[in-house]
């Protein structure tokens, strides 16, 4: 590979940011000043290219320090990693959080997504934009869900520097958001994660039992509350035993697809190709979803332990935690927890003296919903554009770096702990026959006590909403987020199970339950959902790339229309929607029309 670089040079600051991550360059081939010795050897080939996966961390390093990625910085990073600049530019422009144009060091991301829109995000945006105009040193970006729905409306300030500073303002007022953006260090501390768990402290909780009870920074506290008993049990029964327990427990994926976890692990473990990888998908970006954030913030060691068990079961010695870029506190907590676990021999070469080696590396996303798609996530980690791959081959066969990979959602993994401590039969007895165990629900919108609720599968939607204190004037409930579907207020007896929601013609998705009253007109919400998909489509396949645009245009046309005036556009929407569902490469395009379709068919929007 004969790389071509322009004349742009990195600033000292940019160079320092990259060198802090990668170490100083070894030779002029990697961007150092040229010496005579460099003329006698060349660095390149496979060894240099194998570091491609450091591209995304490198882009983060520059962005964290400077606030945008200049030509000089990108070129220098490319030299360091032997990556063609065109490809790196393609990667940098893929992510919403990165800018390749100069912009102020501080960016205030204001969520305008569903829960926040219903809580007054548009007034918040207008107020913040009026205060933080040009020259204020803050760039205000309206963006998708920040995963802070229980405290809507939400804003996240990121101030580039060394180190990068972040501040969350939620629930945000204009005043508080401006304060967070102008001086992130003096912004008030975020409330504890437990405040997002209205049931916190209830001894019956299996997944959230430690949230608000243990100190999330203390490994000792975690162990004092039952931590690492599941891993000991795993070592006692061996990898095949773990897979058997997980299979017998009936655990299925909680990220939305509901694939049997035991089968996925068995398929990965039995692949002859090595090494195997474990990837934890913590890129939860589905609007209205924030359960994984609360677990990672409130009980980070449980995820470390669960990942260790999963890796042990599938024969992986390296795990990646792909964590959403908009979750600064979850990132800090997980970094700390992984560091502590490593220092105490719970990660590393010889875990618990069992001779089993495993370690976890955190990779940060940078604002791309599509990277929650399993194969797009692999591409993102590998330093490519986060575009989904076509399947087959499936990840269990060719996943991360082309190797057998088990990828699981955070909630799925933490379910493994109770399965091993209580045993598969006891776990399988919870819930219904086809949906076993406890489930986390992200309740927000028009309720008095929004937050994460843990209920056994089988509770009805009405029971959940009663628990959360649903307000009067309920107009619709969105199940499963933007990729999910709406149900009517008279359908509250739908059982919250995979089979129950399917029978009712809707979906459980990732467990989002968003309640809406009449504050925001339904057509506006649908338009916001359509905007979301238009913005988040990766652009790879035609049905999704253009279809999401045509969907948004049609919804825009009929936002104030009903009946016969809207009929032609609804026909158009149905035809485009059907093609997106049938012909898109991945789940994003395939579900981009779901919520709109359900609103038309079930709620009678535009009638």
């Amino acid at each position, binding site marked *: 590979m004969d790389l*071509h670089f322009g004349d742009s040079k990195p600033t000292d600051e940019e160079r320092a940011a990259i060198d802090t991550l990668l170490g100083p360059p070894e030779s002029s081939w990697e961007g150092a000043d040229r010496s005579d010795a460099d003329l006698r050897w060349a660095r390149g080939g496979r060894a240099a290219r194998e570091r491609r996966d450091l591209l995304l961390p490198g882009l983060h390093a520059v962005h964290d320090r400077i606030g945008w990625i200049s030509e000089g910085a*990108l070129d220098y990073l490319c030299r360091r990693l032997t990556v063609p600049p065109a490809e790196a530019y393609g990667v940098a422009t893929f992510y919403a959080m990165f800018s390749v144009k100069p912009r102020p060091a501080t960016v205030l991301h204001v969520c305008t997504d569903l829960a926040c829109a219903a809580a007054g995000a548009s007034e918040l945006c207008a107020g913040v934009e009026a205060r933080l105009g040009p020259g204020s040193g803050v760039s205000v970006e309206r963006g998708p869900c920040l995963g802070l729905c229980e405290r809507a409306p939400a804003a996240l300030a990121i101030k580039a520097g060394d180190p990068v500073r972040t501040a969350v303002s939620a629930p945000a007022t204009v005043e508080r958001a401006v304060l967070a953006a102008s001086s992130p260090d003096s912004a008030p501390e975020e409330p504890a994660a437990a405040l997002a768990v209205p049931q916190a402290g209830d001894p019956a909780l299996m997944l959230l039992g430690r949230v608000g009870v243990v100190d999330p920074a203390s490994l000792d506290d975690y162990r004092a509350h039952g931590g690492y008993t599941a891993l000991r049990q795993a070592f006692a029964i061996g990898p095949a035993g773990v897979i058997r327990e997980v299979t017998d427990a009936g655990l299925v994926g909680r990220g939305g697809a509901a694939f049997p976890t035991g089968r996925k692990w068995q398929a990965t473990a039995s692949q002859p190709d090595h090494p195997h990888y474990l990837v934890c998908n913590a890129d939860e970006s589905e609007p209205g979803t924030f359960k994984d954030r609360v677990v990672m913030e409130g009980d980070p060691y449980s995820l470390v332990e669960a990942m260790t068990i999963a890796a042990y079961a599938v024969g992986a010695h390296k795990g990646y935690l792909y964590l959403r870029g908009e979750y600064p506190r979850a990132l800090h907590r997980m970094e700390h927890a992984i560091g502590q676990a490593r220092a105490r021999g719970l990660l590393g070469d010889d875990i618990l003296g069992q001779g089993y080696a495993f370690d976890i590396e955190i990779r940060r996303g940078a604002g791309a919903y599509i990277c929650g798609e399993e194969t797009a996530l692999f591409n993102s980690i590998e330093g490519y554009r986060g575009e989904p791959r076509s399947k087959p081959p499936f990840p269990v066969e060719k996943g991360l770096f082309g190797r057998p990979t088990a990828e699981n959602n955070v909630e799925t993994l933490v379910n493994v702990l109770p399965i091993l401590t209580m045993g598969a039969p006891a776990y399988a007895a919870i819930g219904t026959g086809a949906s076993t165990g406890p489930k986390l629900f992200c309740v927000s919108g028009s309720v008095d006590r929004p937050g994460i609720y843990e209920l056994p599968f089988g509770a009805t939607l009405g029971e959940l909403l009663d628990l959360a204190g649903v307000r009067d004037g309920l107009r619709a409930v969105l199940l499963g987020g933007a990729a999910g579907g709406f149900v009517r207020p008279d359908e509250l007896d739908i059982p919250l199970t995979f089979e129950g929601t399917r029978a009712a013609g809707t979906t459980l998705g990732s467990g989002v339950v968003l309640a809406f009253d009449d504050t925001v007109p339904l057509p506006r919400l649908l338009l916001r959902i359509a905007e979301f998909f238009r913005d988040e489509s990766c652009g790879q396949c035609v049905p999704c790339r253009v279809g999401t645009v045509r969907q948004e245009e049609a919804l825009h046309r009929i936002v104030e229309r009903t009946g016969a005036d809207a009929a032609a556009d609804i026909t158009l929407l149905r035809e485009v929607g059907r093609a997106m569902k049938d012909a898109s490469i991945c789940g994003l395009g395939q579900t981009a029309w779901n919520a709109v379709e359900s609103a038309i068919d079930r709620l009678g929007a535009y009638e």
Partner: protein
Amino acid sequence: MTVTSLGIPRRLLEFTIDGESVRAPEGATILDACRSAGKDVPTLCQGDTLTPKNACRVCVVEVEGARTLVPACSRKAEAGMEVRTDTERARHSRKVVLELLASSVDLSTTPEVAGWLKEYEAKPDRFGPDAARVDEQPRIDNDLYVRDYDKCILCYKCVDACGDQWQNTFAISVVGRGFDARIAVEHDGPLTDSACVYCGNCIEVCPTGALSFKSEFDMRAAGTWDESAQTETTTVCAYCGVGCNLTLHVQDNEIVKVTSPHDNPVTHGNLCIKGRFGYQHVQNRD
């Protein structure tokens, strides 16, 4: 003695296409099988010299048991598969895909697409006069070829040909995301500042005419481009000893563009800058 490697014998898989039993060698795609069975499935992003990207989704077919339609160009045939190429469901998706493309980019130089639009009764105009278009101006920043991204359907073929599938130059990439995604060099600059080596292998694979010889672009603009008046002569490049095949497209006794046969076992349609663009001396009559 020249030995032609036939590879190891491949097992034949038996399955059905539109109810008819067909046999295809293991590893063949549904599209391969369709073509050898004489079935026509439209394709845009599929290229005979490239690994299928299956981005355009115009070749989708129905496979029994599959939740969604599958791209014929990349899905490998399996024994016992029941493929249907012409169902209402597949035709609907093809129609909408063609409408989405035709309403967003200029397909006027895409071969065969006019026939497909008619065949599938696609009506790109129904998205209204305000439907967003790609809306790009032709980029004319060098004397050899023009990048007219208003005609680009983002099939990724040029990127693959420039990258690890053929040229290994990596001068271009898809940049941006979603509807705003475009093909560009680093920092979205001019080609002359990029790693481009002007091999023109991207033009060779471009299915829509978004990439074209400057000579073709100028003649089209002047209204003098006339494919029916052109002859194609395949010859051997005289620049070096490799002996690449060139196909010279000649109109009015002038070479107007150069392609290369895709079935050439050595070059597979690829050339270097000299073979692709270095033909001026042939017609220097002074």
